[in-house]
């Protein structure tokens, strides 16, 4: 029954995982760029390389998701990246987050739920 939809659930699952991987990847890459010193070899540090790999793997998942789902359904789920970045800022970077930011997070989640609900069947 699930496969009757133009955008199967597993395509949505893939893009959600993709956003998590690309957001974490970006975090590690940023960490890695902070470690770049004067030497050329300092570019090849663990956070930067693993961040890049995470990012690329996330992108691959997105491409697979696009193969099986509609662009107009899959793409809005990328906005979930903002939420991962929000959690990252709060729990790993200790940044101050306002209530209005959490409200924004709730709205984004509601938004993707509506998009998923609106995804048409075959």
């Amino acid at each position, binding site marked *: 029954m699930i496969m009757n939809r*133009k955008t199967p659930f597993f395509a949505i699952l893939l893009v959600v995982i993709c956003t998590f991987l690309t957001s974490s990847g970006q975090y590690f890459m940023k960490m890695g760029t902070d470690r770049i010193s004067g030497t050329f070899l300092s570019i090849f540090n663990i956070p930067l390389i693993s961040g890049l790999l995470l990012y690329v793997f996330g992108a691959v998942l997105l*491409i*697979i998701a*696009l*193969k099986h789902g*509609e*662009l*107009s*359904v899959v*793409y*809005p789920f990328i*906005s979930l990246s*903002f*939420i991962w970045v*929000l959690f990252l800022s709060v729990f790993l970077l200790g940044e101050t987050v*306002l209530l*209005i*930011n959490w*409200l*924004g*997070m*709730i*709205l*984004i*989640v*509601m*938004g*993707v*739920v*509506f*998009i998923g*609900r*609106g*995804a*048409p069947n075959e």
Partner: protein
Amino acid sequence: MNELIIVLIIIFATFVSAIGSLFLKLGTKTLSLNFIKLLKNNKLILGIFLFGVSMLFYIWGVSMAKLSFIYPITSLTYIWISLLSIKYLNEKMNVYKWFGIAIIIVGVFLITV
């Protein structure tokens, strides 16, 4: 630099990014695990290239203005994608999808305030 010009740069970046995503989607029709075939997948390559170009413009814009100013503008991409999908991918929009995009855009604005 003039704020309006920065806004225009970002809007341009969002449009290029949307076109790139469109080509990416078109390219997945003939997606295969064969590496040679992947390299010959023109639409996929073009999509990735356009996405890269949009990133360059985006980074340029971000270097000149605050992220909290830039982020909300990037949510324009969702509108471009919806319109492009209708025109070129034969996808259908409906009230749920439009409303979802509307509150995502508001949410992006609030989350980056």
